[in-house]
């Protein structure tokens, strides 16, 4: 007779074994290794919650301290490879296979381990893609997650950094998996229930609060006049012309400069209320002046940002907050919002090739993608019009019946022609291709494919790729804004002038922008302290960003 409850029985057995180290659901921090060694099985698929920001670090330390003779060959399925322990487990043999999305701080080590064959890589995903696979073919057997507090029944308050937790728990708890949550404290009553207790099997009171990286704080004091010039061009040449109201920003200095120019330069152009009103965005501190000046209607967040909690609490008309008053973020929903409900994604990259493919992978670093490819792609499942989307669609349409035309999402790359250490941003060939060849990846780690990119903005001007009619025009449009890089110097001068005459390339002067006006005086805030003042003292920057 067919057994229909095998998974359920295995799950019950694991939980029963784990209960010997628990009082009810509560496990002391000192017993984490014992707990993990009895609830895990060799070869399990495990999500060790490593998000973009918050980290289940106590459970990560516990997992890396497990006996590899008992626990080995795990298949890690988690969005972020952020902590050293996330890779330590591959060195000891506790884990073997990896499917992930983002590895910012561990990008160099992960590249080395991929070259060395210590990690069997499934794929580098986008966030939504990995979340989707949690429900189809990468469902975790065990999820090790992080929250701020829990009660003894396992009801969980994730705090402002909810991030991936609901998605991970949904996939694990409802498909016979075991969920272990580390929390900063056990309380009698949680401020709000982000995860109901019947989805949480064990609660560990961690030895110290979980780690959160302030990933989205850009210090206005470090903003350069080049970045300000690029931001002015983007506002005048793209935001204003397409009337972009719904958007997502990347995390670089270029987009942070745009945020700081809205209340000054944007105000002068008369754009208030006409652009940048609805956002899928983490709570960037650099957005505070625009919020305070009444530019921003609402913001949905992937996660939170260190120091922004009190400010968000006091601005519930802008942010999504719970009955308790604190931010409710959700990476899966916000990524979906960024994909389907925004008319523009604008962000930076490390390399762009002659066709407009871009990548943040270099030969020594595999940083992963995170969410950029989700938001930085044209969603073919979109069916609602907007002026910005339709205008981009018209510009991009070459053939076919206009009555059957659909719109286009604007995907804008904001780059300086030379990046950090004067490395050229524009290249003939992406490093990602060489990396894929060396470690035998079937699919090169391209962040945004050329056919999704609509505009490239550099200090040399804006290239509108929607208006290009063939591959040669596209290449010359890109070379035309590549400045003094090899790629830029290889441009066909006559062709570039022709593209300029057609408005495909627009220089600052074509937009009526005087480069000498790109002055730091235009920034609504010139320092972190200015941001604190704008917030009325509600923003509490972490020590690493304070110069007072």
């Amino acid at each position, binding site marked *: 007779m067919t057994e229909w409850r095998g998974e359920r029985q295995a799950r019950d057995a694991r939980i029963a074994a784990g209960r010997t180290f628990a009082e009810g659901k509560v496990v002391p921090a000192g017993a984490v290794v014992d707990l993990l060694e009895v609830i895990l099985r060799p070869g399990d698929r495990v999500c060790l919650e490593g998000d973009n920001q918050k980290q289940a670090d106590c459970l990560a330390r516990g997992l890396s301290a497990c006996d590899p003779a008992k626990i080995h060959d795990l298949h890690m399925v988690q969005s972020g490879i952020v902590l050293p322990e996330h890779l330590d487990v591959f060195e000891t043999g506790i884990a073997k296979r990896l499917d992930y999305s983002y590895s910012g701080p561990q990008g160099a080590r992960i590249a080395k381990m991929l070259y060395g064959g210590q990690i069997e890589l499934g794929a580098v995903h986008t966030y939504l893609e990995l979340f989707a696979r949690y429900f189809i073919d990468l469902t975790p057997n065990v999820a090790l997650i992080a929250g701020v507090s829990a009660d003894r029944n396992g009801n969980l308050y994730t705090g402002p950094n909810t991030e991936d937790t609901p998605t991970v728990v949904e996939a694990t708890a409802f498909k016979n998996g075991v969920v272990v949550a580390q929390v900063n404290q056990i309380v009698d009553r949680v401020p709000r229930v982000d995860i109901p207790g019947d989805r949480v099997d064990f609660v560990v009171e961690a030895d110290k609060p979980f780690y959160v990286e302030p990933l989205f704080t850009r210090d206005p*004091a470090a903003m350069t006049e080049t970045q300000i010039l690029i931001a002015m061009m983007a506002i005048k040449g793209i935001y204003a012309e397409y009337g972009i109201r719904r958007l997502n920003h990347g995390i670089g200095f270029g987009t942070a400069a745009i945020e700081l120019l809205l209340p000054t330069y944007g105000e002068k152009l008369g754009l208030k209320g006409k652009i940048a009103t609805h956002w899928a965005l983490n709570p960037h501190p650099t957005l505070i002046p625009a919020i305070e000046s009444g530019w921003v209607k609402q913001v949905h967040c992937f996660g939170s940002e260190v120091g922004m909690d009190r400010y968000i609490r006091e601005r519930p008309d802008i942010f999504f907050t719970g009955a308790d008053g604190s931010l409710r973020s959700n990476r899966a929903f916000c990524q979906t919002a960024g994909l389907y409900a925004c008319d523009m994604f604008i962000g930076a990259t490390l390399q762009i090739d002659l066709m407009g493919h871009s990548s943040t992978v270099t030969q020594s670093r595999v940083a992963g993608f995170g969410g950029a490819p989700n938001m930085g792609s044209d969603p073919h499942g979109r069916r609602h019009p907007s002026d910005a989307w339709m205008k981009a669609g018209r510009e991009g349409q070459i053939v076919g019946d206009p009555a059957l035309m659909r719109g286009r999402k604007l995907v804008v790359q904001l780059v300086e022609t030379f990046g950090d250490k004067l490395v050229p941003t524009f290249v003939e060939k992406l490093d990602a291709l060489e990396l894929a060849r060396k470690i035998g990846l079937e699919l090169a780690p391209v962040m945004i494919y050329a056919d999704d990119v609509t505009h490239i903005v550099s200090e040399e001007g804006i290239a509108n790729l929607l208006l290009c009619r063939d591959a040669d025009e596209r290449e010359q449009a890109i070379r035309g804004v590549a400045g003094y890089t090899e790629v830029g110097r290889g441009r066909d001068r006559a062709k570039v002038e022709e593209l300029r005459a057609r408005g495909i390339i627009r220089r600052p002067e074509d937009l009526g922008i*005087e480069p*000498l*006006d790109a*002055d*730091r*005086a*235009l920034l609504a805030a*010139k*320092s972190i302290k200015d941001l604190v003042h704008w917030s009325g003292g509600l923003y509490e920057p972490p*020590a*690493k*960003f*304070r*110069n*007072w």
Partner: protein
Amino acid sequence: MAGDRAASIDPDALSWYEATARQRVAALADPGSFQEFLPPTERRMSPHLPLFDLPRAFDDGIVVGRATLDGGPVLIAAQEGRFMGGAFGEIHGGKLVGLLRAALDLKPKAVLILFDTGGVRLQEANAGETAIAETMRAIVEVRAAGIPVIGLIGGRAGCYGGGGLIAGTCSRLAVSESGRISVSGPEVIETNKGAEEFDSRDRALVWRTMGGKHRRLTGGADAFCADTVFAFRRAALGLIGRAPAFDLATLEAEQARLEDRIARFGDCRDATDVWRRLGVNDPETVPAMDTDAFEATVARVREADHDAR
């Protein structure tokens, strides 16, 4: 737009921290009074940097000249923190030393040094170290001639390395909250002593230890200004008026002040411990205080003002 740029030169609003060396000088001195010596058109550039394939600046990162301040003649030197961190090289140092020596002949009311420096330029270290020593000697001679030398510190690069030593020889110093004064920089201390001793990425710690408020509270600086050129101008005028004589009594008072400082605060682990011992009631609140609240706190601290240096 042009109006914006004009507005940013308004000394009432112009941020000292944000301004270039030239903007600081132009807005600090009486309008139109500044005359530059060895201006960029003279092309006095570093002879050493081309060896390292590094770009040079036409003024080698320092602006020197004469001006009037409230009608009185002064000599001014301003380091440009945006060029190689305002570091001392051969030409850079030579211009400063030359200006100080000229003071002996020109007899201005004061010499103002607008520090913005990380110290000696590593690519021309010997020349830079020599320049530091010569500058200190020249300052001593200028002060001995009865001319006060006033240091103004509030730039992005702070006042580090040899710049910190030179600041110690000035008659009086004015500092803003963003200004930092020290010899070894945070990264140097961390490299030599470890992140447990001094975490250079903890910027709040850096400012607590080396920043303007701490220096003012302990009497390391003699005036505290808001971050505007106007505030620095007012501070400079005030300090010129109350610069100490340069004689044996002053030097002995300075020696006694420094010995007393080590005795009183030598065992403190953090600047907040020092502030508490100075009599600041709620030391944790000092970093977030605005200028007025901080001035009120300074007024209650005995060590902040003294006749020494």
